[in-house]
């Protein structure tokens, strides 16, 4: 999947989960930038990403996925 495609789909998921229709994300966006991105929502986000992209993450990876860039590169890695 192309980077743009991943980014587009991720944006949709982020807007949905963090209940912010105007939300834009870049690879630099992290949990610190989005006030609703707490540990509760993080797992929701991860499960939604897993479902949407048909990938699986390991438990030990989840804490490292609290920024968009890391999330995108792991999605790419898992899809290849």
């Amino acid at each position, binding site marked *: 999947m192309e980077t743009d495609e991943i980014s587009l789909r991720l944006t949709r998921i982020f807007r949905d989960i963090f209940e912010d229709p105007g939300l834009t994300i870049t690879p630099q966006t992290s949990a610190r930038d989005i006030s609703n991105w707490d*540990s*509760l929502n993080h797992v929701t986000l991860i*499960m939604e990403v897993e479902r949407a992209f048909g990938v699986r993450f390991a*438990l030990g990876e989840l804490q490292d996925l609290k920024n968009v860039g890391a999330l995108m590169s792991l999605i790419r890695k898992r899809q290849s």
Partner: protein
Amino acid sequence: MLFNSAPYIFGFLPIVVLVYFLLNRQHWVQAAKWWLAAASIVFYAWWNVANLPILLVSLLVNWAVVNAIWRANEVSDSAAKRVLIIGLVFNLLYLGCFKYYDFLARSMNSTFGAALPLLNVALPLGISFFTLTQIAYLVDVRERLVKRQKFLNYALFVLFFPHLIIGPILHHKDMMPQFATLRSKVFSLENLATGLLLFGIGFAKKALIADPLSAYVRFYFDDTPILGTVEAWQVALAFTCQLYFDFSGYIDMALGSALMLNIRMPENFNSPLRARSVIEFWSRWHMTLTNFLTTYIYTPILYAFRTLSFRKSLIAVFITFFIAGIWHGAAWTFILFGAMHGVALTVNHIWRRSRWPMPAIVGWALTFLFVTCTFVLFRAKSVHDAGKVFAGMLGLNGTAALNRWPGSPDLLGYSMSHAGTGLDMRVVFLVGLSAFLVFAFRNSGELAARFRSHLGGPRGNG
């Protein structure tokens, strides 16, 4: 061995650091690793040699399981899963046997009139910590996050003395690479200096604040039948300060010790008493535990639900903290401690989601009061004793002093105890000093980072 004891400070630590770097200087890297592992075993056995086999059995069994999972991973996922489950069951039974069996037997005996025999073994030092560390490792091995390792690397990761007894709870991905890089083998004056600073801060926290408060706290919690209002609030606040300065001081000493060996362990506290919500509190207090709970308990519970909803998340939060309470200790007080935090976190999440307002100062006050009350449960030897302190705090027994502090009655000939209410000026001073340090100063992690930048070094490791 305790970090704040003379044999550790003047004997163990300097010798370990010196020999470690001398061996590395000769390029005897493997010998240096064995040296650290052996030193860690001495460190552990110093207190009570009888505990050593318990640690080593856990280490060796888990190493066997780790290898079995690596092999099973090459066969099939389900085979690996089976081995993992065996490993988890072993760890939980092992911990349960030493930590919870007597509590369960006693509860069964008193509730159902059963006559289960008690083991009466003292809790082996650090077992709660090295069990968690290894559980996380097993899970990650099964999920193929860990490359095949030599035994020595695994043993050193588990045994490394700075974290062995009281944490921080280490994750292999933070530690293993550090033990492996050559850069960490070269003595660094900057790390030694920063390590000494952290160690000194930790030592001062413990020796100047936590330890002086402990005798006072012990008397009012353990040796009194009933407390007046002032006495109860005083001892509750004193214990909050004692616990924070004791625990975070100990962690500072652990981080400092590790840094002298060029190993950077994760921060465990980030000014938790400044937190303005219970959610924020747990992101600042015992952070490595919170990370473990989130990753290896909360998330699997949610995965087990299959579909997600806000309500299910809250249930998972509650279960997670209920388990965390049990992990803290085998007693009803700890179970209540966990349950109360579980409830508070769900309330906090509902409040946040509802976007109801919460002025910062009110949020802080509520959080601090709540935490102080739950720490009463944390400290009390029984629910009854906790009830005694709560009754006093609620003013059920009047404001007058109901006990006489048996410690030294005065300092420099000046009577420190305020007649009537039991207000003790030494405790007021120490609690006031604690508040001053917590709110007016940078915390130890920030101080260490600043110190390092003044040394002109890079912020990275080494």
